[in-house]
């Protein structure tokens, strides 16, 4: 056995360094992408179970034990359905739109640090990269709405465009606050800046920004109560009204990948990412696994925020389009700007996250 490994290692050593890098990164990308897609599958299951119990129902419980096979049954059903392209649609754009939606949703994971030592691309402008990619996702929605050549889809696309513009700004301003506190655009450094127990998390000094960021995230992903782009009782399904089969499944995948992405970003920006909640709690004993920072802490935080997404969906009625605009432009953007000013003062006085910085 050890001979085998040594033999493989010797082959590996002969591969040029550039190719080694290519193989490693490609396998990392595949691993993360597959994990995200599988997580999406079970997120749909999780959503249906959570909302089911909130509504006094059981949720899926027929396919496999506890209905765990349901996501795969759904995928299979969508794969074998025909993708109907409406006669008067723009065929090329109609097909390309779902891809435009899914690509940024998956590509954003490249800079997400999943633990202290795992990130596919450890770039310094990680935060800008994430902001840029989440904004690109809206092209998929707008192109889908336009290419379908349906009035319902067009309305959905228009709403989506306006909504993303409004909330992207609020989100950007909220991230300016994070940037000020962490002093870095690198997501790993932002997490490390929050090390030292949960009182060091940015949640407390940046509480309003956290709320704005998370709510904007809900709006960006077009989830209830901001799901006007697909509000089924108004414009039926909005931009994806004419999509079926795999094309629809890809939109669905993108939506859920974005939910997980927003939950991850919230955990990283405001909840210390992979940092442990119990860091520095001495009664647990030195080296207790609960005190160690690990991927499981990040996973727990992500799951919590995903749960909050579903909780919101089960609780709230849908906003009207103009009310969403009002909330974005007249409430969130002023709050974030005001809080950035407050942060400036805090930084000047060396409070909170700035207490360590030299005067």
């Amino acid at each position: 056995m050890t001979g085998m490994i040594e033999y493989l290692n010797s082959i590996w050593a002969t591969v040029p360094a550039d190719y080694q890098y290519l193989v490693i990164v490609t396998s990392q990308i595949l691993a993360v992408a597959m994990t995200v897609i599988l997580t999406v599958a079970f997120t749909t299951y999780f959503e249906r179970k959570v909302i089911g119990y909130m509504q006094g129902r059981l949720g899926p419980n027929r396919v496999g034990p506890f209905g765990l096979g349901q996501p795969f049954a759904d995928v299979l059903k969508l794969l074998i359905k025909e993708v109907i392209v409406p006669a008067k649609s723009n065929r090329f754009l109609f097909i390309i739109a779902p891809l435009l939606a899914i690509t940024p949703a998956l590509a954003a994971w490249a800079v997400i640090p999943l633990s202290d030592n795992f990130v596919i691309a450890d770039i310094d402008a990680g935060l800008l990269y994430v902001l840029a990619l989440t904004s690109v996702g809206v092209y998929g929605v707008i192109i889908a709405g336009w290419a379908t050549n349906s009035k319902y889809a067009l309305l959905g696309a228009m709403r989506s465009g306006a909504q993303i513009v409004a909330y992207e700004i609020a989100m950007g301003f909220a991230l300016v606050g994070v940037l000020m506190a962490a002093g870095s655009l690198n997501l790993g450094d932002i997490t490390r800046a929050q090390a030292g127990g949960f009182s060091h998390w940015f949640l407390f000094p940046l509480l309003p920004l956290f709320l704005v960021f998370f709510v904007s995230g809900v709006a960006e992903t077009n989830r209830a109560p901001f799901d006007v782009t697909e509000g089924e009782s108004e414009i039926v399904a909005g931009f994806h009204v004419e999509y079926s089969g795999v094309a629809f499944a890809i939109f669905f995948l993108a939506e859920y990948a974005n939910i997980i992405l927003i939950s991850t970003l919230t955990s990283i920006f405001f909840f210390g990412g992979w940092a442990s909640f119990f860091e520095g709690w001495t009664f647990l004993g030195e080296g207790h696994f609960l005190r160690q920072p690990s991927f499981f802490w990040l996973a727990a935080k992500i799951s919590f925020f995903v749960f909050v997404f579903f909780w919101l969906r089960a609780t709230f009625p849908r906003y009207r389009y103009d009310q969403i605009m009002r909330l974005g432009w007249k409430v969130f953007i002023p709050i974030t700007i005001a809080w950035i000013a407050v942060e400036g003062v805090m930084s000047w006085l060396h409070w909170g996250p700035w207490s360590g910085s030299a005067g």
Partner: protein
Amino acid sequence: MPEIQTFTMNFGPQHPAAHGVLRLVLEMDGEVIHSADPHVGLLHRATEKLAESKPYNQSIGYMDRLDYISMICNEHGYVLVIEKLLGITPPIRAQYIRVLFDEITRILNHLFWLGAHGLDIGAMTIFLYCFREREDLMDIYEAVSGTRMHATYYRPGGVYRDLPEAMPKYQASKWRSKKSVAKLNAIREGSLLDFIDAFTVKFPACVDQYENLLTDNRIWKQRTVNIGVVPPERALQLGFTGPMLRGSGVEWDLRKKQPYEVYDQLDFDIPVGTNGDCYDRYLVRVEEMRQSNKIVKQCVDWLRENPGPVMLEDRKIVAPTRVEMKDDMESLIHHFKLFTEGYCVPAGEAYAAIEHPKGEFGVYMISDGANKPYRVKIRAAGFAHLGAMSEMVTGHMLADVVAVIGTQDIVFGEIDR
């Protein structure tokens, strides 16, 4: 300069918020509605015409299918007008049972309305909560008539049969264990009245739960306050009735103003709104559920104390029982006549109206003395409400159209007839 064209959108008839088969042609400027043109008739089933070709009793079942959310109330209007033409009054116990079932139906209707209205505005959980309670009410329907929806329970001269002494029970199956069945059946051990009584006890807490989700919810208020405002004068001009009129602040309820059956002996209040917007109509309907619950409770108490006949003994109108029919020659003849020819109603015309959950439901009937009506005209409350659609939504946004359709509580079965 080019003229700016409005955006015409075809809303329905296949639309998740169209409440059946409403087709609205919307003229829009972006998201803002310039005018709405409702098209009706897609669910026309010629109920009025069909009623002309069959004996009186055979049309009772058609009435259930008019407004298929509040089935028994439709029967009530139809049965009442026949009784008026015949000049008969059902026994007092039958009147109480009718009031009991009218109010159960009102709760049934308002629960459905609340669930559908919530779902239209995007609150999906309320829908399932409402349907949870509707399930019990459907069981009450089933216990008394054998069906969960189209009961065909009222008859001219009373109701088809007295309230049963036992409730139908769940049975264990592959999907339902003995234990869960026992739990479900625990409340069904007694008579129907016990079951209804238990329902009235638990129901106010359920309404609190719905209100908890919606009444003070900021998004719910943003979506309903000042949407579809109808001032009281205009509401009267448009022929509004029921909660639509009371939401505008006009205190008009046939149960109080023109009491039929035993409503004048019962204690209940009529809620009215102040602004005439969707939110007020929501509050009015929620309060009506509480008041109906109160009436149901009073009826249950009365019915427990006062056994008696639930049908007239007049064999020219009401069929004899099976036992009588088997022993008695004359009963057999009556039975045969009633189930072939039916009864003849003296020539004349009459209008009878009831306070249907949606408003005034009236039946106008002309008899030429035959065993079939010469003409039946049904006044459906929803028809007048739908007529106000355009003026209620003009100037609002697309999402408000859905809120207004919801608040009007439209059911196409009765509008298209």
